[in-house]
């Protein structure tokens, strides 16, 4: 598949994803040996999923519930 590097894809789309209420972050993961886009959310809900893309420029998007991310973690 001809697609841009995932680093570039993340750099392009992260600001827009972080602007969605409930999104805490993004990252580069892997599934089945293939790179995937990970979107971290405070809580995984159908409403939020409906607003998230299923793929970005040829990379599958996987949603992970991070919870509220704190330092210190509580």
């Amino acid at each position, binding site marked *: 598949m001809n697609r841009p590097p995932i680093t570039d894809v993340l750099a392009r789309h992260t600001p827009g994803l972080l602007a969605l209420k409930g999104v805490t972050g993004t990252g580069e993961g892997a599934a089945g040996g293939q790179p995937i886009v990970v979107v971290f959310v405070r809580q995984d809900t159908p409403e939020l999923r409906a607003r998230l893309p299923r793929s970005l420029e040829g990379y599958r998007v996987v949603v992970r519930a991070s919870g509220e991310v704190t*330092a*210190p973690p509580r």
Partner: protein
Amino acid sequence: MRRSTRLSLALVLTAAAALAFGCGQQGRLTSPNDHASALSARPAFDPSSVRVVAAMASQDRATPALLALSGVVGTGTSIDAAGDPVIVVYTERARVANLPEAIDGVPTTVVVSGTVVPYARPGGGPLQMGTSTGNDLECAAGTLGCVVVKGGVDYFLSNNHVFARENAASLGERIDAPGRYDAHPICNQTPQCANLSQFQAVSFSSNNTVDCAIARPISGLNYSAAEAGGYTPASTTVAAAVGLAVKKTGRTSGLTHGTIEAINVTIRVQYTDGIATFVNQIQTPGNFIRSGDSGSLMVTETGNNPVGLCFAGGSGASFANPIGPVLQALGVAIK
């Protein structure tokens, strides 16, 4: 890092008070000279009984003079086998001179506790990495990550929000081990291990990569680069990769194992003073670190090569700074 809701300003509780409390709770000292056997068969200790209250008052009055005696390390109130109150005098060694046989008519009993050491160092061995630490100006507890070196001098590595109070600290501030959150009673002052030397400020307006700080061990401190989890970090770092098996030793959850699930992570992190955005981070499962593990060093499962500095988490994911930028920001190397 774990933090109590508010720093108690009652910092000057004496060892005597702490030991008296411990005695009332039937706390045990771990010295081989523990006197517990002589007190073990006693009836139930009732701290509200008139005689015990009177004995504690006598103990409190006598404590300053007792602590002034060479070899006395603390006092307490207990009861003997017959249920009668006694004032306990804890000593570093046997046959300490000039101890009274009774105080205000309450008999004394001597417990040779030996030199009392913090719980973080059972047996009085060297201070290990992966154990509790904190800034002395807050009642909190994080983790000593590892020993790093700069210009031939050793430093302890942890997070800014563990050593440097989220940007608020001044260089030179006192760093304790364990952190005050782990004191008995909670928030009491704990032994000093280091002084804050340097930290990377966390920005709340631009992207961050690291939440890190170093503290210089105090002169004469007995410490080790070994982690309490039973390994010593290698000096050569390894870059994070998805699927890499890693482990860490932290103050709360001890030795845990996990797999890196994502890299190049952008994550918004809630601090006391606001939300900070971190980029180029490492993500592991949520149970990899717990509250109080902040500052622990992530290393490879095989080889013990440093990979990241754990600093934040939520219920479903944990996050670490990549170790390369941490070392670069502070100008240090893993010892």
